[in-house]
């Protein structure tokens, strides 16, 4: 089976550390046709996962379609890269129905547009008006400090150790000072 795939896609590579695994990198324009071919003609019937990674240093998003062939017991990773500036890719939920859920999540979490995707706007987030949260330039800490605030009257409870020591008059041991804020 691996030889057969390599005959059709010569650029496919075997990664030795992960058993029955095969990696394939394709252009984003070719994704639907390659996936359809793999499903219909190569026996990769099961779409196991669509993973997404933000490679901000290279200015790209990566999508990884992970397919499984139940008959040949081969796991195939189809990688594709999308420009961060204009993140658009073809929708594939007519090939695998459940891809719709993955694409809804990716649209919300990375801001990638899937042409032709029909799905409700919101998936997990509600009334989100910041940049998509799974982008690497989204700063979780800064967002939390901006969005949430301390309950009034609890300001002194921020450093528990020093508060307790002030109230009780006991010295903080040296080893604990090291970890105090």
């Amino acid at each position: 089976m691996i030889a057969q795939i390599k005959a059709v896609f010569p650029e496919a590579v075997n990664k030795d550390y992960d058993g029955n695994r095969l990696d394939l990198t394709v252009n984003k324009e070719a994704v639907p046709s390659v996936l359809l071919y793999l499903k219909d003609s190569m026996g990769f019937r099961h779409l196991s996962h669509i993973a997404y990674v933000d490679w901000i240093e290279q200015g790209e998003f990566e999508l990884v379609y992970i397919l499984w062939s139940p008959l040949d017991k081969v796991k195939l990773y189809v990688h594709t890269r999308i420009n961060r500036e204009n993140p658009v890719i073809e929708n594939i939920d007519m090939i695998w129905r459940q891809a719709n859920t993955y694409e809804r999540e990716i649209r919300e979490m990375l801001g990638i547009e899937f042409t032709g995707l029909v799905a409700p706007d919101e998936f997990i987030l509600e009334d989100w008006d910041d940049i998509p949260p799974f982008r690497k330039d989204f700063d979780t800490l800064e967002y939390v400090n901006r969005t949430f605030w301390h309950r009034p009257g609890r300001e002194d409870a921020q450093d528990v150790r020093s508060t307790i020591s002030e109230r009780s008059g006991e010295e903080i041991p040296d080893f604990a000072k090291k970890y105090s804020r």
Partner: protein
Amino acid sequence: MREKATTIYLGPQHPGITGNMMVRLKVIGDTIVSAQTEVGYLHRAFEKLQERRNWLQGFTLMCRFCVPESDPMENVYARSVEAIDGREVPERGKYIRVMVLELARIATQLMWYAGQNGSLGLYTMGQWSIGDRDYILDLFEELTGGRVYHMYQWPGGVRRDLPEGFTDKVLRTLDYLEKRLKDYDDLMFANSIFQKRTQGVGIVPKENIIEHGVVGPVLRGAGIRSDIRIDEPYEVYDKLDFEIPTQEGSDIWARALVRRAEVHQSIRIIRQVIDQMPSGEYFNKFPNPLKWIVPAGDAYVRVESGRGEVGFYAVSDGTIHPRRMHLRGAAYVHAITLLESILPGQNIADVSAIMNSLGTCAPEIER
């Protein structure tokens, strides 16, 4: 006269829903005409948090992805890091992992016994099986220190060796459970209420079932012999002798029979594991966790949980922090596209029973 459809909301807080999620149902009379799953009540951004943590800290979050079933998640995390890092696990560590995974499978199915019967108003079964599940949680507590979240399987092996006399206690618990399973059969499978409420209800169409992403007991309940333990053997499953039970009905009843048989198979596996358990090391040390750099690479590993395939995609860019961690749970497909497609035509009263039989777990969807 043409009847008007009414919208009703099942959840997010509802005793019949497994976890916090909502199903928006359009009904005519008490028949469902359309269903839409809404999630977002539990989002904790675990995957985003992982990016700020190091490789060891990430592991403490893993077990929390799905509350009733923590061990498969730990296993995929550990194995994905091992795959990228080229880290070996000693043979004894692998056997202990399989024992823990199978005990977890029994605990999950006992929880399912309770949920499935509770959704039909048969509460005695739940009191029995949750009580018996506690005997397994006692074992986990002795082995790992935690009852529900164990944080036990980490990259390189497991955290502690088996305590003195532990395997005897496991065997005693299994003997007890085996006796109890006969009582369960009498109370549940011989009960005509259970039969009538489950046979022919919640049928998952067999056509294109693999293409639709159906996994685990739901797929086996439709007559397809598919299990990651034999398809892509991990740990030491290739050295163990067990069967993959299947049923043909593809309804709640068929899936119940599959799960019932799986408990028996798990007991069989654990006995073999204890029999074959090698001595020696249980853990290969990893470097100082604060400075542990995992080489650049990615890996997707899968495990057969009690509810089906759990996959985990880890990416390292060669630093002390993971670049990306991404979990695929069985419920991600089952609770959304599958549930939405099989609910139309069903009765409102059966929704909870169908959700339970599909193995819905809301926290796993939102991660």
